[in-house]
Each structure stands twice: as structure tokens, then as C-alpha cells.
């Protein structure tokens, strides 16, 4: 299914008039060859969590980098926080990127810095926050991901799952207005993956930060959509059978084209052959 309706209007529980945090209009990008992404239009509304599905190599990570201005489209328009970033210089993009938290595929932690300095990187560079305040916020962010004990360690001494959690802490420390997760569970064991999904659900349900999560793992996508984070029990609990989180919706890419945009129910009942094949 490739509906022409804006996603913000389709997503239950979201005000139709809400200005999207992210909006792509017919974005196309190529690297010395055929388009990696062609004519992509989508939106992320305030409070909305969008899960971008698709097999490896269809341009999911490229799409995230387009949204953050790390890559610029050949054609089309990208609005981030209502501002057209396609014509912006790198200097003009930095303030907008500072309002966005991004979790990279392998964490992308700076291996010459400690966990503290990695998580505090943005705050340290801003030169506006005192060291004591930085330490307090780093401890808070690390506690959120359950890794406070790694404060003084170097990324080399952490496991893959721990590195992803530190990367999430780094993305969260400046209270971002948008979160971009690039395959946060890729290559991890099921238990660690569930922990990461729990953190993403926690951020969604506690802070209501709009986000876009790229993944090719259906089990993670469905877990995020069919669970809620219970703050009293401090863990993720399943929603009643047949229910899905209304603010969590799906997108699917096939060979650089957006072939699906809709809710979990619509995804499960889609008659698109590629969607059916991907689900099966």
C-alpha cells in the first residue's frame, strides 16, 4: 500500500493539524549510478514513532542521513523542524542537528574517548554547561540505559550491546526533539535486542520524543508496536492482544522506493506482494 494521505493524518491519536517534525517531499538521491532512493515522501509527526522496514541495501540508512542533513538529496525537499534543509550550508545545519539525536548502526562511539566523554560530547563542545552538571547528566543518561558503571571505561572494553546502549545515552543527553535509530538491534542477540527495544519504548512512552527507527528485524518492530513501557514496574509490558501502540506506524522500502506507509493493522493486511513476502 502506498497511500497518498499524509501519515500524520493517518496515525491514530495524533492531531491532523500538527506540523510534522520531519517531512520528505519527493526526495531522490543517487551515488554514481541509479537512484538509491527515488521519490520518497513521508512525514514524522510530533510524538510519532515510525519504523522503517526493508531488507539490507535498500537505502534505509541513507534515508536517515538525508533527514539529518548528513547527505543532501539530488531532487526533492526535506523539512526538518519545519525548515528546508536542502539548501542549507553545513554551518546552518549544525544547530538543527544539535536538536536531533542519532544512533548509528554500530554505535559510532569515539574510540579514543571514555564513555563519559562520548556521552557528554555534545555538551562539552557547547562550552555552556559546567563540568559538574555534565557529569550529573551523563550519569542520568547512563542510568537510563542501565550502564552507569561504565562511566570511566573506553568503548573497546564494552560489548556490542553495551556500545549501542551508550550510543542511545549519547543521543538522549541533550533531550533531542527527534530521535533517529539506525538498526539499533542489528547483529545483537535476542535478549540484548529486547533490552534495546525496551529503551526505545521507554523514550517513546515516557518522553514522547518523535522518532524514526530503521530495522530489518520484524520481531523488534512488532515488539515496539505491541508493547508499552510501564514506568511503575520499570519494564516493557505487552499491550492487550490485538492492540498496537497508536503512535507507532510503519514504512517499507523496496529497491529505493517507499512501497508502504501505514499502521500495524494495515501492514499485516497489505496485499502488496513484496510486503507479504517480507512478512512471511
Amino acid at each position, binding site marked *: 500500500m502506498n497511500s497518498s494521505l499524509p501519515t500524520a493524518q493517518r496515525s491514530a491519536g495524533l492531531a491532523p493539524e500538527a506540523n510534522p517534525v520531519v517531512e520528505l517531499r519527493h526526495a531522490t538521491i543517487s551515488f554514481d549510478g541509479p537512484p538509491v532512493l527515488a521519490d520518497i515522501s513521508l512525514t514524522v509527526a510530533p510524538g510519532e514513532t515510525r519504523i522503517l522496514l526493508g531488507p539490507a541495501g535498500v537505502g534505509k540508512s541513507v534515508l536517515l542521513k538525508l533527514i539529518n542533513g548528513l547527505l543532501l538529496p539530488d531532487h526533492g525537499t526535506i523539512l526538518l523542524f519545519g525548515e528546508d534543509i536542502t539548501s542549507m550550508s553545513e554551518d546552518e545545519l549544525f544547530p538543527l542537528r544539535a536538536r536531533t539525536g542519532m544512533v*548509528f548502526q554500530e554505535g559510532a562511539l569515539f574510540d579514543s574517548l571514555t564513555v563519559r566523554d562520548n556521552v557528554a560530547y555534545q555538551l562539552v563542545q557547547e562550552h555552556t554547561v559546567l563540568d559538574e552538571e555534565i557529569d550529573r547528566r551523563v550519569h542520568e543518561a547512563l542510568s537510563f540505559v542501565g550502564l552507569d558503571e561504565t562511566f570511566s571505561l573506553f568503548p573497546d572494553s564494552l560489548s556490542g550491546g553495551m556500545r549501542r546502549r551508550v550510543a542511545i545515552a549519547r543521543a538522549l543527553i541533550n533531550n533531542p526533539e527527534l530521535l533517529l535509530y539506525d538498526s539499533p538491534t542489528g547483529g545483537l542477540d535476542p535478549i540484548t535486542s529486547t533490552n534495546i527495544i525496551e529503551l526505545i519504548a521507554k523514550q517513546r512512552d515516557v518522553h514522547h520524543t518523535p522518532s524514526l527507527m530503521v530495522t530489518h528485524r520484524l520481531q523488534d518492530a512488532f515488539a515496539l508496536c505491541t508493547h508499552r513501557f510501564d514506568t511503575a514496574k520499570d519494564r516493557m509490558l505487552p499491550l492487550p492482544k490485538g492492540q498496537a501502540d497508536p503512535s507507532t506506524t510503519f514504512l517499507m522500502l523496496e529497491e529505493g522506493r517507499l512501497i508502504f506507509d501505514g499502521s500495524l493493522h494495515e501492514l499485516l493486511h497489505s496485499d502488496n506482494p513484496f510486503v507479504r513476502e517480507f512478512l512471511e
Partner: protein
Amino acid sequence: MATNQIDRTAKQIVLTVQEYSLFAWHSFLNLFRPPIYWSEFLVQADVIGVGSLSIVVLSGISTGGVLALQSTATLAAFGATAMTGQFVSLTMIRELGPVLTGIMVSGRNASSMASELGSMVVTEQIDAMRALGVDPLRKLVTPRIFSSAAMLFFLTIISDACGILGGAAVTVFMNHQDGPQYFSMAWEHLRHPDIVQGLIKPVFFGYILGSIGCFYGLRTTGGTQGVGRSTIQAVVTASVLIIFVDFLITHVLLTLFS
């Protein structure tokens, strides 16, 4: 088919030169636009300057010694062995000190910059830096380039001094000539243009090795193999460019001073 290949390669070379020129120019401009990461300048000055000291001292002493050894045989034919000091000091200060130091330091630091930044590119650390609102050009590149230029200036002075001392050691202990005469000849025939020439070159060479190392590092593609490729390209290009620019600067300065 062959024409297409030549056409593509030529365009690629022109594009690379254009990209490098813009890269080097923006890195230069960043020195005058905040934020300026002064602490990074100090760190890089330590890595490039102090870290390269041993290879510069050793290569300086050896080169000065070799110059003294080689020149003695030739000068003896004209009964001019007393000129060894002049020959060694002028050659070291005007030419071999800057060029050898530039090539030695580029072998050590252009490769290190290319591999370090290349690894950061392939592990998405550069993208992460940009995503966190920090410009890698200001944070990583500008400090490396200007620390290279500043440190190469001082390293060249050390290399010149070591070369002259190495030449003196060979002259006195192996050729059994007079030490004071060697130093007297080395000093008396030096002119200001020689020193100016010898101290302008390393600033250019430092800029070249720093900018080429960072340029190829940040252009890395293709994983760990790509990092290796970038490192080789950086060292080869920096060394060749240093020798070529040496020719240009020498020509310009000789014309000016004559």
C-alpha cells in the same frame, strides 16, 4: 572505449584537484572563524612535533654525515676539503633539511592522519561528529594542518643543526680535519637568503602533508581496505607534492633573492 577511460580518468583528476583546493582553502579559513579548538592544536603539535623528533634527529645526523663523506672525496680533487663545512651547512639549510624533514614527517604523520581519519569515516565516527553538531573540518583537520606547518618549521631547524653536527663528526673523527675550521666555514658562508629559504619551505611542506593526510583520510571508502589505500595515497601524494613544491619555491626564491 580507451578514449572514454582517458576522459573519465582526466575528469577524476581535475575533480580531485578541485576538491583538494577547496578543502585546503576552507581549512585555512577556519583558522580565522570560531569555534577554534586550541586544545586540539596543542595535542597535535605534541603528536606531530615531539613524536617526530627522534626520526628527524637521526635522519639529520645521518644526512649531514653522508654529505661530509661524499663531498670530501670530490672536494679533495680540487684541494678544497676545507669547504666541507660550507657545503654541508648550505645544502642542509637550503635544501636537504626542509625536504628530508618534510618527507620523513609526511611518512610518519600524513599516513597516521589518513589512517586515523579513514578509520573514523568507515566506523561512522565522522558522521556521528557531524550529527552531534561538530564540524570535523574545524575539530580534526584545521588543528592537524596548522600544527604540521608550525612543527615542521621547528623540526627543520633541529634537522639542520643535527645535519651540521653529523657532518662535523664525520669531518673531525673520520676525515681527521679541523673542527673549528669546519664550523667557521659552515657559519661564515651562510647568508640571510639561505636561512629565509630554508625556513619558508617547511611551512609550505607542513601545510601540504597535513592537508593531504586529512584529505585522503576523509575521502576513505571501502572499509579497512579503503583505509590502507588512503594511507598509501596520502604518503605518496604528500611526498611527491613536497618535492614538486620545493622546486617551485626554490625557483621563486632564487629569482627573488638574485
